[in-house]
C-alpha cells in the first residue's frame, strides 16, 4: 500500500504529474476532498477538508472564517444600542433571538427589569423564530438527503412566520428589534389574530414535513445511527441545545435558568437518547410543537402595559417630547451621541437560542460604548465536535450530520 499522502502534499497541485501518478492503482491512496466553501451541502461558507480512504472518512477538518466580519471588534466602536444590527447577522435564521439575548445581557449588566409586556413579546418573537429556525433545519435535511418536497413544505411554513416577523419588526431577516429596556414598538394591530392563524397553518405544514420524513425508510436509514456522539463527548465539546438534548442530557436554559416569562409558561423539553442524527432531527420536530404551545400561551396571557422602561437614561423619549421639549431633545441627543451609560462591570448571560446556549460576556467601562463584547455562539462548540461524529464513518454520513448540527456561519464565524 502506498504511503498515505499528507494533507499538505495533497493540497499542492502539480500541473504536470509524473506518468506514474496518472495510473489508477487499486490499493488506494488517501484522498483529501474539499467540501465547500461553496458546496450546496455546506450551509453558509464553511470548508470541510475531508481525508478519505475509499469512502471512509479518516479525518475531517472544518475550516471556518469565510464569513468573519469582526463582530466583536465592531461592537467596541459603537454604542450599546448600535450593536443591535450586528447581532442580527449572528444567527441570521433567527435574528430575534440574538437581538433579545444581547439586550437581556445589557439589561442585566445595567441591573434593570423590563416591563412584563415586553418580556412576553420577546418570548413570542423568540419562539416564532425558533420554529422558523427548526423548520429551516429540518427542511434542509430533507433537501440534502433527496427529499425536496419536505423542504418546500418547511419553507412555505417558514415564509408565513417571516411575514409575521416582518409585520412586527419591519424586516424579513435583519430585524434589529427591541431596545435596551424593552422594545421600541408594540405589537401591530390585529397581529395576534394573524399569528394564531399562521400557527394553525404552520402546524399543518410541519406535520406534513414530519409525515414525509420521520417514517421514510430512506431518510431513516441515512439518519439513524449516523453522526453519533456520546453524552460525555457532547458535554466535553460544549454542546448545548437540541444537539446536547439528543444525547439524553436534560439542559435547556429556559428551564435551568428561566428568563423573561418562561417560568410562567407550560412547555416540555424533549430529550433524546441515541445522540445520532435521527434524534437531533426528532428534537427539532418536537421543539417546533413545544414552541407552538409557548406562543399560544403567551399570546393568551400577555398583559397590557408599556413595552419599554420610562427612564430617559436608558430609553429614548417619545418623539413628541423630543420635538417639543428641551428635556426630551437633550435626552435624545445624549443617548444617540454617547449611548447608554452602562455601569462599569462585567457579566455573562445566556439565553436558549435555536441551536443552544447563546452566551454573552460583556465588559463595560462605564461609557456609552462596550469595552468588550464576546459572544458564545452555540454552533461553534458543536461544529468543533463534527470531526468526532464523522471520523471513521462514510462520507455520505457527513451530509446529514452537518445538517443536523445546523451550523450557522454568521454566528460561528462572527
Amino acid at each position, binding site marked *: 500500500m502506498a504511503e498515505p499522502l499528507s494533507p499538505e502534499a495533497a493540497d499542492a497541485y502539480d500541473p504536470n504529474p509524473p506518468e506514474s501518478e496518472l495510473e489508477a492503482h487499486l490499493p488506494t491512496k488517501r484522498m483529501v476532498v474539499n467540501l465547500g466553501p461553496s458546496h450546496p451541502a455546506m450551509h453558509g461558507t464553511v470548508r470541510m477538508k475531508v481525508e478519505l480512504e475509499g469512502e471512509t472518512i479518516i479525518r475531517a477538518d472544518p475550516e471556518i472564517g469565510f464569513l468573519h466580519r469582526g463582530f466583536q*471588534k465592531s461592537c467596541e*466602536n459603537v454604542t450599546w444600542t448600535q450593536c443591535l444590527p450586528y447581532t442580527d447577522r449572528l444567527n441570521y435564521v433567527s435574528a430575534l433571538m440574538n437581538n433579545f439575548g444581547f439586550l437581556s445581557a445589557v439589561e442585566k449588566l445595567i441591573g434593570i427589569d423590563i416591563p412584563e409586556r415586553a418580556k412576553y413579546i420577546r418570548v413570542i418573537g423568540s419562539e416564532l423564530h425558533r420554529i422558523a429556525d427548526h423548520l429551516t433545519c429540518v427542511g434542509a435535511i430533507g433537501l440534502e438527503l433527496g427529499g425536496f418536497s419536505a423542504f418546500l413544505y418547511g419553507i412555505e411554513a417558514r415564509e408565513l412566520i417571516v411575514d409575521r416577523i416582518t409585520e412586527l419588526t419591519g424586516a424579513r431577516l435583519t430585524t434589529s428589534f427591541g431596545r435596551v429596556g424593552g422594545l421600541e414598538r408594540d405589537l401591530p394591530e390585529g397581529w395576534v389574530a394573524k399569528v394564531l392563524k399562521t400557527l394553525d397553518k404552520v402546524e399543518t405544514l410541519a406535520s406534513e414535513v414530519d409525515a414525509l420524513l420521520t417514517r421514510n425508510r430512506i431518510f431513516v436509514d441515512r439518519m439513524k445511527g449516523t453522526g453519533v456522539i456520546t453524552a460525555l463527548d457532547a458535554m466535553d465539546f460544549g454542546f448545548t441545545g437540541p444537539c446536547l438534548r439528543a444525547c439524553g442530557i436534560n439542559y435547556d436554559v429556559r428551564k435551568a435558568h428561566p428568563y423573561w416569562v418562561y417560568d410562567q409558561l407550560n412547555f416540555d423539553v424533549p430529550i433524546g437518547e441515541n445522540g445520532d442524527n435521527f434524534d437531533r432531527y426528532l428534537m427539532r420536530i418536537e421543539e417546533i410543537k413545544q414552541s407552538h404551545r409557548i406562543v399560544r400561551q403567551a399570546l393568551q396571557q400577555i398583559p397590557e402595559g408599556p413595552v419599554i422602561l420610562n*427612564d*430617559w*437614561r436608558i430609553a429614548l*423619549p417619545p418623539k413628541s*417630547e423630543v*420635538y*417639543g*421639549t*428641551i*428635556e*426630551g*431633545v*437633550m*435626552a435624545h*441627543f*445624549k443617548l444617540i*451621541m*454617547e449611548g447608554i451609560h452602562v455601569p462599569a462591570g462585567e457579566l455573562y448571560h445566556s439565553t436558549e437560542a435555536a441551536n443552544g446556549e447563546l452566551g454573552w460576556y460583556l465588559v463595560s467601562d462605564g461609557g*456609552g460604548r462596550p469595552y468588550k463584547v464576546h459572544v458564545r455562539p452555540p454552533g461553534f462548540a458543536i461544529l468543533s465536535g463534527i470531526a468526532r461524529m464523522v471520523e471513521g464513518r462514510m462520507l455520505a454520513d457527513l451530509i446529514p450530520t452537518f445538517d443536523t448540527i445546523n451550523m450557522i456561519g454568521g454566528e460561528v464565524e462572527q
Partner: protein
Amino acid sequence: MSPPPAKAPPKHQGFVTCTIDGAEVIARPGTNMIEAAKHVGVEIPYYCYHPRLTIAANCRMCLVEVSNSPKLVPACQTPLSEGLAVKTNTPVVKESHRSVMEFLLLNHPVDCAICDQAGECKLQDYYMQHDFRPSRLDDRKLLRNKRKVLGPLVVLDQERCILCTRCVRFMDEVAKEPQLGVFERGSQERIDIFPGSSLDSNYSGNTVDICPVGALLNRDFRFRARAWFLSTSPSICTGCSRGCNTFIDFFGQETYRYRPRENEEINKSWLCDQGRLSYKYLNRDRVLVPTLGRGQDAQETSAAEAANWASQKLKPLANTPELAVLASPVASNEDLIACLSFVKQILGVSRIHAGGRPAGEADHYLMTADKNPNRRGLEWIANGLGLELKPFEDLVSAIEAGSVKALYAIGAELPAHPPGFEASLKRLEVVVVQAINQGMLSAYADLVLPASPHSEDEGSFTNVDGFIQRFRPAYPTRGGSQPHWKWSADLARAAGLAWTASSAREVFREGAKQIPQFASYDWDASAPPAHLRPGGGPLPAAADGRPPGYREWGTPRVRGI
C-alpha cells in the same frame, strides 16, 4: 452665661481636615470645596463657578449638604472648616440638582439641533446626570432676543442664557474691560452690553469658552462645525510671541478653531481674539505643491526635482556673500535648527536675516507686539550655531545695492514691504522659498517649496519669556507640503550630504547639543499629553489612530462640516 466651648485644635496643623462623601480631605485653609472634592474623586456639578473668577454662587447647582448647616449650601462659596462633613449624594442633594435643572431648563429653547454648543454643553451633561425627567411646563416659554450681536466676535442668544454671569465677571476681572452687564431683574433679567457700546475687547472670545451653555457664540465658528465631529490636539498659538497654550480643533485636515489650554505661567485659561482668529492661515492660501519658475511660468514639479534644482543653483554660490538667507521666526525650533544647520554647513553662510510677520500692537494682557511665535528661538539658534542674525532692512538694502544675487528663504513671511522691494526681488538670479502661504515672496520665487505649519508636525516654540513649549501634530501634512526641517534634509541630501535626522524629535536632539538654552530641555517629557482632550467630542480616533473624518485624499468638501 457660660463661654462658648473652646475650639478643638485642627487635626493637621496649618490645614483644614474635613470629609467629603466620607473621604477625608486635608486642604489648605481657603481651598474651594469644589476643587477639594475633585481631589477625592467627587464631582460637584456647577455652572457659575469658575476657578479663575470670583464666586457668584447664583446657579445653585453645587448645593451640598454640610454638617454645620440645616439647609443646603453652595459648595463654591462655603469655606472648608475643621471637622466639616460634606455630603454630595444624599437624596436631598439629588432632588436639589433635579429641581435646579428643571428651573434652568424652564425657559430654555428647544435648540440642541441648531446650537453650536450641543455636544459640549453643560446643560446636556448635567441634565442626563442629574435630572432625566420630562418637562412639566404647560405654558409658553419666555421669548427673548435670539441673535443679539454683542461685538465683532460674539453673538448672544438670550433665550439660552442661564445667567451664571461668568462672562460678566470675566470681562470685569480678567479682561478688565467691563463691557457686559446684567440688565433688568426677575424673569426679565438678561446679559447685555451697555447701551451704545459693543463687546470689542480683545478678550471677548473667552466669554464664549467659559459660557457653560450655548448662549454666547463665536461668530467666526458659528454653524461651521458640530462639536462632536471635531478632534482635538494640544498646540501653541502662533499669533504672537506670547505662546499661549491652545487646543487645535480640527476635522480632516482643516483647523476649525483654537481653544485656550491651561497654562498657569503664560495664559492661565485665556486666549486673545487676535490669536484665536490666527488659525486661518493654516487653511487658506496654502502652498501645496512645489513650483518651479517665476510668475506665469511657474510649473508644478516633484519634491525630488525641486530639491535637486535648489541644490544645483545654491551650491555654486556657497561661501559667497552673494547668497542671502532669510529665516522666519514663524518656524519652529526644530525647523530652524535643521534649516540653519543646513545653510551653515552646506551653503557656508555666516549671516542670516530675520524675516517674519510685521510687528503689530500689544495690549494690556496677553498680546505682544511681535506677531511671531518663535523670535526668541531664532535668536538662540542663530547664536548657538554661530550665525550672525541681521534685521530684514539689511537684506533689503543689500538686494537693492546688488550685492546679493540669490535668496534662500525659510518661511515666506515678510516684516515689511519697502517701496521698490518687488522690483529688486525681480533682479535676483535665484530665489528659493519654503512657504506655508502664498505671498509676495512666493510670487517672485524661482522655486517655491510647500512648507507645513505647526498644526501638521510636532515641534516646539520658544516664547517671548524664554519658555520652550512643545506642540503636537493635529493632522497629517496637507498636499505635498512638508515641514521646513524635512525640506532642509531633502536639500542637504540632494547636495550629497548624508542627513540622518528623520523626525523633528531627532532634529532637536542633534541640534540641542549646540544651543546652550536647549541643552537641558527634555523634549519628550515636555510634550502635552495627547489624550487630554476635554470637550474633544465623543468620537474616538479610529483603531489605526487616524482622526475621525480623515481621508487620504484630503478633506471632503461637505457643506456644513
